[in-house]
């Protein structure tokens, strides 16, 4: 009787979550793999299997390669710059006060800085996108161009210059992301025993030395987590590009990315099968990235 009651309870608690999850998450994913082998357009009742044709077409699709190139640039730049700025700022916040008395201190006002730095993280990416439309306005009325005009600089087309647009988008991602990693790294730094710094400072190590010899090696795992996070973020960027650069990845495909292309292919061009094939490609790209990062960065840990 007790056994029966236990199983009844287990089943009762699992039923609704399992059904919701299977219907809305797992079944679309499974269907995506299946539909990627079809030429389904979204409304026809006949679903025609075309084998791997979609993937063949994908390899010849200029837009796809353009998107991949852009993801490649983001994947290189976004993690490095974000982590570098975040490490620098969190080092200043936590240890910038210098070695003193019982250990290292943070600078004055570090709580205030942390609160400000983190704030963009809680804003919706769509909201940030609209905000930066004003910041990046191409005429002299934009926030940046207006300031530049004071120094006699001609207005810059931050989002309209093909060579510049992607960098402007990456800058927004960095602007929004840094605070999160400052908090993450600060927590990591707080966990490093203070006497390490004391001992090194007694031996005459300066701040720069402290950072590279103690902080960085001991933060290795945290930085790795951040790296994977930012790498996965490099394959997203949907809301930002959609709001800031428009559907078409203007100018000239300079900001074309896979998520926006998938969305358009499925819902504007009604090529659901082809969109699913792109989704499958995106899935393998993210998984490959995560596995590669874990593989190559796994080294012996520094034991505390």
């Amino acid at each position, binding site marked *: 009787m007790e056994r029966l009651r236990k199983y009844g309870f287990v089943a009762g608690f699992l039923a609704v979550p399992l059904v*919701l999850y299977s219907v809305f998450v797992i079944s679309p994913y499974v269907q995506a793999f299946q539909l990627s082998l079809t030429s389904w357009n979204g409304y026809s009742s006949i679903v025609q299997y075309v084998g791997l044709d979609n993937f063949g077409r994908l390899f010849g699709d200029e837009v796809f390669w353009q998107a991949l190139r852009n993801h490649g640039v983001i994947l290189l730049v976004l993690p490095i710059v974000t982590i570098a700025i975040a490490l620098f700022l969190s080092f200043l916040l936590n240890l910038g006060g*210098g070695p003193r008395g019982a250990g290292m201190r943070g600078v004055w006002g570090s709580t205030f800085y942390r609160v400000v730095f983190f704030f963009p993280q809680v804003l919706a990416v769509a909201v940030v996108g609209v905000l930066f439309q004003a910041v990046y306005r191409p005429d002299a009325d934009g926030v940046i161009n207006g300031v530049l005009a004071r120094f006699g600089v001609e207005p810059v087309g931050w989002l309209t210059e093909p060579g510049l647009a992607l960098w402007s988008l990456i800058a927004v991602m960095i602007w929004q992301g840094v605070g999160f990693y400052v908090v993450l790294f600060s927590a990591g730094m707080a966990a490093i025993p203070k006497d390490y710094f004391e001992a090194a400072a007694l031996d005459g190590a300066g701040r720069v030395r402290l950072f590279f010899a103690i902080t960085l090696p001991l933060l290795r795992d945290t930085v790795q987590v951040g790296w994977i996070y930012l790498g996965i973020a490099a394959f997203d960027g949907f809301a930002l590009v959609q709001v800031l650069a428009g559907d078409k990845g203007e100018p000239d495909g300079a900001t074309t990315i896979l998520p926006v292309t998938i969305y358009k292919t499925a819902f504007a061009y009604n090529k659901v099968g082809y969109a699913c094939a792109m989704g499958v490609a995106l899935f393998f790209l993210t998984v490959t990235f995560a596995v590669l990062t874990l593989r190559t960065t796994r080294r012996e840990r520094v034991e505390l």
Partner: protein
Amino acid sequence: MARNDPPRRSVLAGLSHIALAVWALLIILPLLWTFLASFKSNTEIFGDPLQLPGALRLDSWGRAWDKAHIGRYMFNTVIVVFFGTAGTMVFGSMAAYVLARYRFAGNRLIYYYFVAGLAFPVFLALGPLFFVVKQFGLLDSHIGLILVYIAYSLPFTVFFLAAFFRTLPETVAEAARIDGASHTRTFFQIMVPMAKPGLVSITIFNVLGQWNQYLLPLVLLAGDPDKWVLTQGIARISTLAGYEADWPGLFAALSMTILPVMVVYIIFQRQIQSGLGAGALK
């Protein structure tokens, strides 16, 4: 204390402050500019961007609330996020609890079934998801969006809470059982209160995630602008502002979206930072 410092050290401390202040300004200035622009007139916005508004014009705020429907978008968002997060927490904690603390055939399998959802980008599911929701007749409905939010929040919620429930001591649950409490009662009256810190973190994580969601409502609510949430609304207002030349209205709408988030953030910043940080430890 600064007096005892050698001069080199205070110079360095000064430089640290300058670096920190520069980044803080980079964050604050665009937000401050938006807020000020909501009080400006069109000509002022297109004038010198560093100028303050000539008068405190509040009419753009009224226009944004009524005419641009910010009020409605906000109401829709609150409804969707409230039920979405509530549902996620109820179903997520139930599943996590059972998976963490009961032994039965298939336990591991079901656990990994849930966690597998973390590996897939949502863009992969986009097309099929639209048609699944359509089949149920739930397109352009808040119920549909809420169910989808719950379903997509489950993998991380289950993963995080299962780990949390595992750490709770067995003795208390044992005592409750000996006193004759049912499994359900043990869960709601003993285990949930004990798991409060974990539940708070993951609730914050889900509220923020669902509040900021843009892609799913864009796909699932596309047909009925009356049902739209804030992120969609703001994006549309931004497009319309170009045609209607109501720039103060746009910035008022933007300020109205940002301000409540800012207030909540300042009150709960410690919990929010650790709640989102919990996400990074997965």
